[in-house]
C-alpha cells in the first residue's frame, strides 16, 4: 500500500475521532429506547378498589409510627410534668388523633369501593342506602378531624378522643354491621342468580341428552337447591329490610351471617351437580 494513502487514512481517522462517542451514544440510546417503551406501554392497571386497599394499608403503617411517638411523649410528660413535655405531648397526641381519623376515612372509602364492586342490579338490592350511610360516617369523621385540629390544649384532645370513641361504638359499628350484612346478602343473591342462570342453561342440554334416569335425578336435586336457597335468601332480605342500620348490633349480623352460610352450603351442593353435568353431557 502506498505510504501516502496510509497517511491519508490515519489523518482521516484522527480527524473523525468524535464519531466513536456518537456511535456508542447512539447504540446505548437504541438499547434503552427498546426497553423503555415496553415498560411505558404496559402500566399496571390499578383499580379504585386496589387504590383504596393500598391507601388503607399506608394509613395503618403511619398510624403505628405515630402511636409509638404518642406513647413516648405521654410517658415523658407523666414522668417530668414540665410545660415543654406537656406541649410535646399535646403536639404528638394531636398528630396521633388526626391519624386515627385518617384511618377511619380511608377505611370507609375502602368499604364504599367494596360496595361499588358488587353487582347490586343482579342482586336486586338497593345500593343507595349503603352509600348514604358510608357518606354520613365519613362526614362525621372529617368534622371530628377539624375539631381535633382546632383543639388548643391537651384536655381538648382528650375530650375529642372520648367523643370519637363513643361515636364509633354507638353509630359507626352498628351501621357498619348493617353495611356488612347488606353486602353479604347482595353478593349471595348475585351468586344465587348465577346459579339459576347456569342451571337453566345446563337443564336445556341435559334434557336433550339420552341419559333419562340421570336427568331426572339431576333435575330434582337442582330444583331442591333452588327452592331451599330461595327461601333462605328471602328470609335474609326480609330481615335486612326491617332494619334501618342504626341499631344493627353484632347479634343481627351473626344471624344474617348464619343465613348466608346456609346459602353457601346449598350452593356448594350445586357446585358438585354442575361439575357432574359438565363431565357427563359436554
Amino acid at each position, binding site marked *: *500500500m502506498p505510504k501516502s494513502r*496510509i497517511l491519508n*487514512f*490515519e489523518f482521516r*481517522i*484522527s480527524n473523525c*475521532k468524535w464519531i*466513536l*462517542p456518537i*456511535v*456508542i451514544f447512539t*447504540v446505548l440510546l*437504541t*438499547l434503552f429506547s*427498546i426497553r423503555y417503551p415496553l415498560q411505558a406501554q404496559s402500566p399496571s392497571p390499578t383499580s379504585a378498589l386496589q387504590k383504596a386497599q393500598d391507601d388503607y394499608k399506608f394509613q*395503618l403503617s403511619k398510624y403505628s409510627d405515630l*402511636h409509638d411517638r404518642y406513647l413516648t411523649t*405521654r410517658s415523658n*410528660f*407523666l414522668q417530668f410534668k414540665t410545660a415543654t413535655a406537656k406541649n410535646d*405531648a399535646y403536639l404528638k*397526641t394531636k398528630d396521633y388523633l388526626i391519624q*386515627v381519623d385518617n*384511618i*377511619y376515612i380511608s*377505611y370507609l372509602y*375502602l*368499604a364504599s369501593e*367494596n360496595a361499588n364492586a358488587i353487582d347490586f342490579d343482579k342482586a336486586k338490592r338497593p345500593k343507595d342506602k349503603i352509600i348514604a350511610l358510608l357518606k354520613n360516617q365519613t362526614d362525621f369523621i372529617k368534622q371530628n378531624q377539624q375539631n381535633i385540629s382546632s383543639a388548643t390544649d*391537651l384536655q381538648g*384532645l*382528650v375530650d375529642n*378522643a*372520648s367523643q*370519637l*370513641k363513643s361515636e*364509633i361504638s354507638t353509630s359507626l*359499628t352498628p351501621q*357498619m354491621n348493617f*353495611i*356488612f350484612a347488606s*353486602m*353479604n346478602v347482595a*353478593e349471595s343473591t348475585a*351468586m344465587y342468580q*348465577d*346459579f339459576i342462570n*347456569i342451571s337453566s*342453561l*345446563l337443564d336445556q*342440554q341435559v334434557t336433550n341428552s339420552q341419559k333419562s334416569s340421570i336427568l331426572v335425578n339431576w333435575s330434582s336435586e337442582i330444583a331442591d337447591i333452588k327452592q331451599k336457597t330461595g327461601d333462605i335468601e328471602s328470609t335474609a332480605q326480609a330481615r335486612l329490610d326491617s332494619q334501618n342500620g342504626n341499631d344493627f348490633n353484632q347479634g343481627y*349480623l351473626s344471624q344474617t*351471617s348464619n343465613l348466608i352460610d346456609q346459602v*353457601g352450603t346449598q350452593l356448594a351442593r350445586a*357446585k358438585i351437580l*354442575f*361439575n357432574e*353435568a*359438565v363431565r357427563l353431557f*359436554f
Partner: protein
Amino acid sequence: MADNQFQPMEQDILSEENLETGSGQKRTPANISPKPKLPKPSPKEITMRAVNAIVRIKKPKLITLAIIGATILIAYFALLALSVNKTYQMRFPNTNTTPIKSVIPSPKPQSEQAKQVDKFNSELENWIPYEKRIPIPSPDLEITF
C-alpha cells in the same frame, strides 16, 4: 489567446470523430478494445488492509473506544437474541419443536357452559364475608393524662 490555448484539444476530438465516421465501420464488439479491468481485491487482501489500518492507529484512546463500541454492540445483539428467544417461549409455551407427534390427545376446548361453571365454582370457593374481609379498625382511643 484563450481560443488559441484550447485549439489543439478541439482538433484532437474532431480528428477522432472524423476517423470513426470516415472509415464508415460500425462499432462491433470485435472492434471495441477491451476496457482495462481493475484488479479484483481478494477478501484476504481486504482483511489485511483492515488489520493494517487498525494496527497503524497510534492513539490508544481511539483503540479503546473502538473496543468498547464493539463490546457494547456484541452485548446488545446477544441480549436481543436472548429476549427474542424468551418471548417465543412465553408466547408458545407448549410448542413442540420436534416433529414427533404426541401420543396424548389434546384436551377438548372448554365449552361456554363449562367456563360459566368454573367461574361460579371459584366465586363460591373464594367467598369471604365482608366483616372478615374488611374488619372495622380498632385504634387505641384510651387517651388519658
